């Protein structure tokens, strides 16, 4: 049972705490993706699991053993690095066999395992080449091969696809997903790519400044972000966040830019409170009449082919233009006149509300 447990894991560099108490349970065979902005501590957390960084506080256990004091090699993990970290003076075969040789595994078995991994990754033809003679994608495969042959309990990936071009990234993404499913090895994957975050893992952890803001299935996180940060971070283009205030009955939200948003289900307990209103660009529709909606001025229109992104600023009439941006995503090719006004509409169920002070979700 390759479970990975983190309890109150902390890391500080001098006075600076970069991981501020992470609690997790990663189940056997589960694929967990860590996502977060640059510098939030993703790599640090992963490297602590790997044993490449010391643990300042808390406990990490793998397969039921506390590994805080164990060397990386004793933790039964394999890691794929962003820059692949292939040994440049060894052939592909030697790269993959290195760890096995150190473990004193019989030669025939090494050969067999390397062959098998090479078959899975379709790199049999390159075994005698040196890493220098491979393309980025092939190097990536070798790096994965080196991880696979060790048959570890846990795979750790630190942005393994970020050095590849867009097309190859899509291909490798699918392969990694398939590979993980087939091998069933518990995996932790760090990325800052939205699509990888949403598609790869069973569960997604959103990290912000050393704190796990939310841990859940990608869909859960997309549909019910628990904090303003998660709401703004997951999704591309990101969720529109507007400041507003619930009226005295808690039945509608008053926007400072003018306009109100009526709620079908009143929020009595929060009446009069300052809130942040969130609505995803893809959940906005053009208003036909003057129902529940807001007015915006169109500033830039981007046509992506499949979609049209309309960048607007919130405001009603020439006099009340604010600088709060608002993005609308409409499917298909639509044309708009830049500088004109329009009203927008959205269904109540797509509305997210957060406490303006704590940033926590209001249900």
């Amino acid at each position, binding site marked *: 049972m390759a479970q990975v447990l983190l309890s109150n894991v902390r890391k500080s560099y001098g006075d600076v705490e970069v991981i501020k108490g992470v609690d997790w349970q990663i189940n056997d065979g589960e694929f967990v993706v860590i996502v977060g902005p640059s510098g939030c501590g993703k790599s640090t957390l992963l490297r602590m699991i*790997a044993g490449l960084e010391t643990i300042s506080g808390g406990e990490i256990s793998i397969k039921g053993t506390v590994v805080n004091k164990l060397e990386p090699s004793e933790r039964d993990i394999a*890691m794929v690095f962003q820059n692949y970290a292939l*040994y440049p003076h060894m052939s592909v075969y030697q790269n993959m066999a290195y760890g096995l040789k150190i473990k004193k595994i019989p030669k025939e078995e090494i050969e067999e395992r390397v062959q098998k991994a090479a078959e899975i990754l379709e790199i049999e033809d390159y075994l005698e080449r040196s890493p*220098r003679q491979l393309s980025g994608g092939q190097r990536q495969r070798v790096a994965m091969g080196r991880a696979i042959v060790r048959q570890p309990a846990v795979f750790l990936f630190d942005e393994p696809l970020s050095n590849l071009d867009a097309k190859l990234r899509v291909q490798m993404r699918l392969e990694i997903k398939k590979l993980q499913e087939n091998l069933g090895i518990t995996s932790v994957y760090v990325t800052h790519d939205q699509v990888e975050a949403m598609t790869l893992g069973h569960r997604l952890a959103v990290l912000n400044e050393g704190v796990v803001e939310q841990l859940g299935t990608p869909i859960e996180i997309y549909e019910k972000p628990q904090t303003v940060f998660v709401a703004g971070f997951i999704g591309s283009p990101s969720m529109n966040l507007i400041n507003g205030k619930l009226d005295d009955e808690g039945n509608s939200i008053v926007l400072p830019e003018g306009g109100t948003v009526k709620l079908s289900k009143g929020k009595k307990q929060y009446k009069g409170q300052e809130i942040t209103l969130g609505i995803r660009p893809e959940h906005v529709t053009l208003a036909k009449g003057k129902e529940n909606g807001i007015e915006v001025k169109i500033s830039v229109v981007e046509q992506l082919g499949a979609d049209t992104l309309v960048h607007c600023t919130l405001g009603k009439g020439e006099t009340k233009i604010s600088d709060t941006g608002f993005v609308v995503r409409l499917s298909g090719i639509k044309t708009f006149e830049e500088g004109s006004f329009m009203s927008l509409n959205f269904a109540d169920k797509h509305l997210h509300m957060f406490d303006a002070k704590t940033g926590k979700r209001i249900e």
Partner: protein
Amino acid sequence: MLKRVHFGTSVLPYLLLAPQIIVTLVFFIWPASQALYQSLLIEDAFGLSSEFVWFENFENLVSDKTYLNSFQRTAMFSFSVAFIAMSTALVLASMADRVIKGALTYRTLLIWPYAVAPVIAGALWVFMFDPTLGIFVYALKAIGYEWNHKLNGNEAMFLVVVASAWKQVAYNFLFFIAAMQSIPKSLIEAAAIDGAGPVKRFFSIIFPLITPTTFFLLVVNVVYAFFDTFGVVHAITQGGPAKATEILVYKVFYDGFVGLDLGGSAAQSVILMAIVIVLTVIQFRYIEKKVEYT
């Protein structure tokens, strides 16, 4: 529009180059050509007359037992110096590579010996190993060893080798540490995850990846031992006892200025010159070779 600056045929570039060219001419090219010319002459002991003899000086050298002995001694000496200086530097560098706190102090201290002049370095070791005053000799006596490098040729050789190597460690250390720090950290980490301990990592990853540097340093150290150790030898043993530490550079000096055999001494220095040229060519050939990190 960019304005281009043209010096035209002004004298400025020549003026700027002149100091370097003059230094090269006066201190390298002229003495070298003098040595070449001298090596073809035989001069009488009083310097009154000289005779052009073509390669007779060289022929004499080749059949001169003391010269061939000195050649052998120099080869032994050079490789010992290179080996000791490089292996010490390698150990220190691989330790410094892992140090994080106080790394700068550590490195600065290690670089100091390089700034010490050869004769001063020699003098230091002479004091430490002086048969009557030296602190090391005193310590050795305590464990029952009589040290006297003024009588024992092997001890003298040992002392000269150690003193010469000591001075070169700093230089080697700088190159080794630079090479080690250019190895991506993730490579070492990958090896650690693969289960390689520090020693295994050193021999299977770090050492192979710094071979170009090692090779470069090997040539530099051999050149150093061949040519720049005159000061050390002169300060410690003056080539003695009984010529036990008379390496080639020292013999050039001794035969020329003490023995007054100017032609023979010049011929020796021409041979040394040829050796250094060959070594330099080898070095430039291979220094181009670099490791590519993927």
